[in-house]
């Protein structure tokens, strides 16, 4: 149908075909990936963000929980961005840049953990549906369609609300329980198209157990689209977590969460203290942008056609 590979950031395919003549599939993909400037930018942005998250205690100029009004006096309350506080301070006199740095931990953790949950559910279910077909496929496809019918945000909100326990575990479990469906769709389509291949048939003829065929023989050949889908999914998960926190259903104060900071800072937009809500939002946008660049780049490099 549509060739989604053709986006604004595609590389010219005819460049230097010699470099691609040797090496494995993954090596060739890496060579293609490396030539895509936006994809590389995305990769470096993500590495930088992971670095900020891991080394937040070393990089943050202040303790993210420390209310500086007690040490620096009232001038530390809602201070505009300056050399001392590059992103200003909030109404409690906390340094916003330090909180933004620590916030990267929470967002990336949720992004990765919820993706792991959705892969753990989505890949096996998609694999079983695609490989076996028949009634089991009907059943799993039905479940996927049912989950797809819900507005994701609202469904996740409802799960978190009824769990009545706004912990990080509840948040990433709820998100994972919903977002596995897009992974499962991709996995199902892949297994469905590969199950008739000769190498799979020969593996069956040799009497290999189905589990081995599914996960050792077919799965490696389905990884590319699954990786692309998962990477693009991380961005949406981070956005969803931010939305949950913004509405008060995710991270709870005084935790340094980007969504929560925007929520706390929004009332000060009208009185001129724009920085409290502005910088955490920038952080979210940059993070999600990085994962989208990376996902688009991987899709082009791995030559994946995804139906969106």
């Amino acid at each position, binding site marked *: 149908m549509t060739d989604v590979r053709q986006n*604004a950031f595609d590389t010219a395919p005819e460049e230097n075909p010699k470099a691609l003549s040797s090496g494995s599939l993954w090596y060739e993909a890496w060579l293609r990936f490396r030539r895509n400037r936006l994809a590389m930018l995305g990769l470096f942005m993500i590495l930088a963000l992971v670095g900020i998250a891991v080394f937040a205690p070393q990089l943050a100029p202040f303790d993210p929980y420390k209310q500086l009004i007690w040490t620096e006096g009232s001038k530390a309350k809602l201070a505009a961005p300056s050399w001392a506080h590059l992103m200003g301070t909030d109404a409690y006199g906390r340094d916003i840049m330090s909180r933004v740095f620590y916030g990267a931990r929470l967002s990336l953790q949720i992004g990765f953990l919820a993706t792991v949950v959705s892969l753990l559910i989505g890949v096996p279910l998609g694999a079983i549906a695609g490989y076996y077909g028949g009634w089991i496929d009907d059943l799993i496809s039905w479940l996927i369609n049912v989950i797809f019918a819900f*507005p994701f945000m*609202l469904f996740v909100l*409802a799960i978190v609300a*009824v769990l009545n326990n706004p912990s990080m575990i509840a948040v990433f479990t709820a998100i994972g329980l919903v977002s596995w469906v897009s992974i499962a769709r991709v996995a199902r389509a892949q297994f469905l198209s590969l199950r008739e291949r000769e190498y799979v048939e020969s593996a069956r003829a040799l009497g290999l157990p189905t589990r081995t065929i599914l996960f050792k023989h077919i799965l490696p050949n389905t990884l590319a689209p699954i990786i692309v889908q998962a990477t693009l999914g991380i961005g949406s998960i981070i956005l969803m977590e931010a*939305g949950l926190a913004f509405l008060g259903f995710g991270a709870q104060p005084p935790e340094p969460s980007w969504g929560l900071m*925007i929520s706390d800072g929004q009332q000060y*937009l009208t009185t001129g203290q724009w920085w409290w*809500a502005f910088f955490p939002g920038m952080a979210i946008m940059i993070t999600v*942008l990085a994962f989208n660049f990376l996902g688009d780049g991987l899709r082009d490099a791995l030559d994946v056609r995804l139906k969106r």
Partner: protein
Amino acid sequence: MFAYIVRKILYTIPVLWGVVTVVFFVINIVPGDPVAIMTGQRGDEETLAKIRADMGLDLPLGQQYVRFLGQLCRGDLGTSYRNNEPVSSAIWTRLGATARLAAGALFLGTVLGIAAGVLSAVKRYSVFDYGAMFVAIAGVSAPVFWVGLLLLLFFAYTLGWVPGVGYGDGSFKYLILPMITLGIRPAALTARLSRSCMLEVLSQDYVRTARAKGLKRTAVVMKHALKNAMIPVVTVIGTQISSLLSGAVLTESIFAWPGIGRLSVDSLLARDLPMIRGVVVFMAVTFLVVNLLVDISYAFLDPRIRYD
């Protein structure tokens, strides 16, 4: 055609039943007593028992489920715990506001997205193309609530061009900012998709033939290519309903827009389980019905679909 429509409708019924069932079990099989969750720490044992009996929560789960299905078939979504308002009438009174918002956002997103996408494709690799596609990828990466707050800050509080939050007297000027906020994501997705579809169509033989026989470029794009490129774009409008409804939850809370999204957040915060249940069911059913209509209209647009 008739058979196709009937098949689509029959296919939707099990999904509809699944949606209702999933909602019921998510709300009812949760750790903890729903009545205790709703009332918080307040309420003596006698009151709790009375509420349980009123809501039928003292019945076995199977009976509760049958009762719930029966009520749904009569169009009864239950009664709000918070203010004893029937859930269906609460949804009904807020439906207009959300429909206006979603329709405005979808219209804006589709028009803007198609225009930007087609222009990008026609002027591939131009400054406009790169600019528009960068804005599009930034548009899907930015948190919708943050964008809404920034729009409020600039256009309402700083420039004073439009009123701030609220529905006001219902006039158009109150709709502008919420509509733009919610419209950004569909606009960005539509732009990316239109661009890639247009590029694909432009590379086809019949387009080259049209050009070769001396037709002007604009005539080829507008008369020959556009119609075919738009088929996939029309279909995703249906799938965007889901993300629109999710986005409406956040957009309506920022703009104090009296719609269903805001109703859902309010009832989630109040742990008003019957209301949450009703709103989630309503939104999922809306999604299914809209997609059914899109599928049917798709078959009208592209006769090949009917013979699948």
